[in-house]
């Protein structure tokens, strides 16, 4: 990765492997996270993302591999000697302690003067905007407020690393949205290296500097949100991050062309592919061109099978000429009105060659 040579990576993982009995949870994960970076581990449940986070935290022990933090090998250190703060999905606030005592929990064992501790507590509560709730108990706060307290508690001892384990999953949608921005802004302000585990691709896209997409214990792709979204490296990533249409095709005789049924299509792949190779073409629903902008190239005439109104846009389920259900197409609500489309009617569309990604055929 792009860690500059002068500063060691905040977190470096080398060949991390983990087994539970005969089940392999992680297979040789190697990764480097720069200081100040916000990285999301994204993947479906069971992909190993939480296990990886817990290995970094020292809460689970890896079967093989090395964990480095700031250039220091921490593989054999217990959690208490690794210098990180962690926030769990369940908040894990101590219910019998006030907000202030929760936030100060990690400070009180260190030999810090009492006034200094109180000052730090006030500072952090101000940071998460909950100074007024200092003397309340966690049960008296809302879920979002509790999660902010948990965040303040994790940050209180000024850790070098912040670990977030699905921190927003237990909250309702609206709170989740606002807390997303808040956590991101706070992280930028403090510049603390952060790793967040999530299964919510929208959350990862919105918050991360870099996303690590995981599946079945391996890293599928690492990259900036735009990169992962625009140039997914595998069909899995394409499907898991955002929506994606897949079309079975075969490579054509000309480089950059493929045959989709009776239609020749130009696609975005640049490397040469042997003619006749079976391929999967992929395009996102919002990248399909419809209406007046439909070009001559990569043109298809489809039939509308269903129309789903989803607020800001409308999703059309389209059947290809041979009748197979094949494409989903998102049309902005404003554009949809001008389209005059109805269920059962025909719709012409074109697939921009640059948007047509190419993967090897599945199976």
């Amino acid at each position: 990765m792009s860690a500059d040579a002068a500063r060691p990576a905040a977190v470096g993982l080398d060949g991390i492997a983990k087994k539970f009995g005969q089940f392999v949870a992680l297979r040789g994960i190697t990764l480097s996270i720069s200081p100040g970076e916000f990285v999301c581990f994204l993947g479906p449940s069971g992909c190993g993302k939480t296990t990886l986070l817990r290995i970094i935290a020292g809460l689970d022990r890896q079967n093989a591999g090395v964990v480095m933090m700031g250039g220091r090998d921490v593989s054999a250190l217990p959690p208490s000697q690794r210098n990180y703060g962690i926030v769990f999905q369940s908040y894990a606030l101590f219910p019998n302690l006030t907000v202030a005592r929760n936030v100060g929990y990690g400070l009180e064992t260190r030999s810090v003067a009492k006034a200094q501790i109180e000052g730090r507590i006030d500072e952090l509560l101000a940071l998460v905007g909950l100074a007024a709730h200092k003397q309340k108990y966690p049960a008296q706060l809302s879920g979002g407020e509790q999660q902010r307290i948990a965040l303040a508690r994790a940050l209180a001892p000024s850790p070098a690393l912040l670990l977030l384990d699905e921190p927003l999953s237990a909250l309702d949608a609206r709170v989740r949205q606002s807390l997303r921005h808040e956590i991101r802004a706070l992280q930028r302000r403090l510049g603390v290296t952060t790793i967040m585990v999530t299964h919510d691709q929208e959350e990862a896209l919105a918050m991360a500097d870099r996303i690590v997409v995981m599946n079945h214990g391996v890293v599928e792709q690492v990259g900036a949100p735009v990169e992962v979204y625009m140039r997914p490296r595998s069909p899995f990533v394409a499907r898991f991050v955002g929506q994606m249409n897949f079309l079975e095709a075969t490579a054509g005789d000309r480089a950059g062309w493929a045959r989709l049924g009776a239609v020749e299509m130009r696609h975005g792949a640049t490397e040469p592919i042997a003619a006749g190779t079976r391929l999967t073409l992929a395009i996102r629903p919002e990248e399909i061109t419809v209406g007046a902008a439909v070009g001559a190239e990569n043109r298809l005439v489809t039939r509308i099978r269903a129309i789903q109104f989803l607020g800001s846009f409308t999703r059309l389920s389209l059947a290809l000429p041979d009748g197979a259900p094949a494409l989903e197409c998102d049309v902005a609500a404003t554009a949809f009105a001008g389209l005059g489309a109805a269920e059962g009617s025909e719709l012409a569309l074109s697939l921009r060659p640059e948007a047509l990604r190419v993967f090897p055929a599945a199976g």
Partner: protein
Amino acid sequence: MARAASDGPASAIPDRTVRHRLAGEDLIRHALVVLFAIVLYLFVLYPLLHVIWRSLLGPDGAFVGLANYRRYFGTPAIAASIWNSLAVSLVSMVITVALSFGYAYGLTRTLMPGRGLFRIVAMLPLFAPSLVQALAFIYVFGNNGIFTRATGYNVGIYGAKGIVLAEVFYCFPHALLILVAALSATDARLYDAARTLGASPLKTFLTVTLPGVKFGLVSACFVVFTLVITDFGAPKAIGGKFSVMATEIYNQVSGQQNFTMGATVSVVLLIPAVLAFQVDRVVQRRRYALVTSSSRPLAPARRPLADWGGFGYCALIAGAIAGMYLAIAVYSLVARWPYNFTPTLRHYRFDTVGGYTPLWNSVYVSALSAVVGTVLTFVGAYVVEKCRTRWSGALYLLAVLPVSIPGMVLGLAYIFTFNKAGSALNVLYGTLAILIISNVIHYFTVGFLTATTALRQMDAEFENVSASLGVPFYRTFWRVTVPMALPSIVGISMYFFLNAMVTLSAVVFLVAPGTELAAVAVLLMDDAGDTAQAAAMSVCIIAIGLAVRLAYWALMRGVSRRTQAWREPAGTTTLPVEGWKT
């Protein structure tokens, strides 16, 4: 990415995980595990193995294999105790569970008047040794009983009949607690659904009510069966010539000094007790959550017939229980029951057992059993739950084993272990300490499981958060775990205290001159013919139990008031396995 290189086969990954360097607190953690293991080994496994080993030896100490068992089964006079025990236990079980089901139904599903009072009266037998219910029946129906005198009709209470009666009363609250809990945990929506589908009350009862409480019924059956088959007090007092296994052990050991046969009967008695508990655990594992967060509690409707029927039924049973205790109280307060009813306090002098020493010994032993038992079960449960090692599973098994060990067997095992010339453990013999230890172990499992449940209800990440903040686990244990579990902790200590006050079987072999206990004194005075003093001592035991229970109730109100700021309203704690006290 380095994907191709990482796709190795699973076998390429080492089986061992990377070891963490030990921090100071890890040493404490490991020391606790070792300590807990030593306690369980020394006071549970080792004594138990002693009994089993002893049953394989002849009187001269030579190994004889199964010869003792052949002799046991081959001697009709002794072997009869097995069938007697099984018969008495099964009959008591059926009667107790049937009676307490009706009572529990009245308490939870009707609007009969006096439910609060009925609930309290039904709990009275928890405060008396099992022996006391037997004495009460003797005072009423015995050869010199008030009923026998008044009517001239002797029902022949001594023997199986009397044992069953005494056991039904003794076990009644245990079964009732389980069934009340089972009948309370229901979902009103099921009854709404049954009504909208046009089910008759009988059909609703058979298809909704009974299936809903079947796990409770099973549990109640096993608990009562185990209580009866391991009980010593009632059959000793009222059994007459009718010998059961628990009294057989006593006869062999105390009467004939035949320790070998005592050990043999003990091992045989272990079998039903272990089986009952294990089968119940297997059954309960299949239990599913009937009550979810969306359930609506059932609010009984006013049904005059059911309400007054329930009232009549419960009044009858509550009257019988109250009458029994009244008989004991009166017996202890009159000159000579049933001939001379002049009030007197002279039976409270306890001159035959040396005054009040046994009673104060009992209070002392019970209080210390409560403290030691609570600390040991709670820390033990913490060690097993939170300090996961490869030994955790074995420790858990050892910790739930004591509930299957009948008191008589435990007592005998402790004789073998702690009354052995030349052994370092000998120092404990004849002290109050060994009485405390035997109580703690005898009632260990319920305390342990209660603590385990309380710990499992806490967020598993508390310890992880503390570790990440650099706070040692013992600090979090003290500042968070203990305060949060306080209601359970107080409940556990109450459980230890009350049981230590009334137990007879576990301590009857272990008391020595100077360490007499109240329950044993009741037995001795009854044996010696000082029945009025036995009754008086029983009254004292019950009074102390009730007083402590009242203090507990006040304390719990204080605890819940102090913690209501942070405890969510739904946070109620119960003893999940309340019934399992053998």
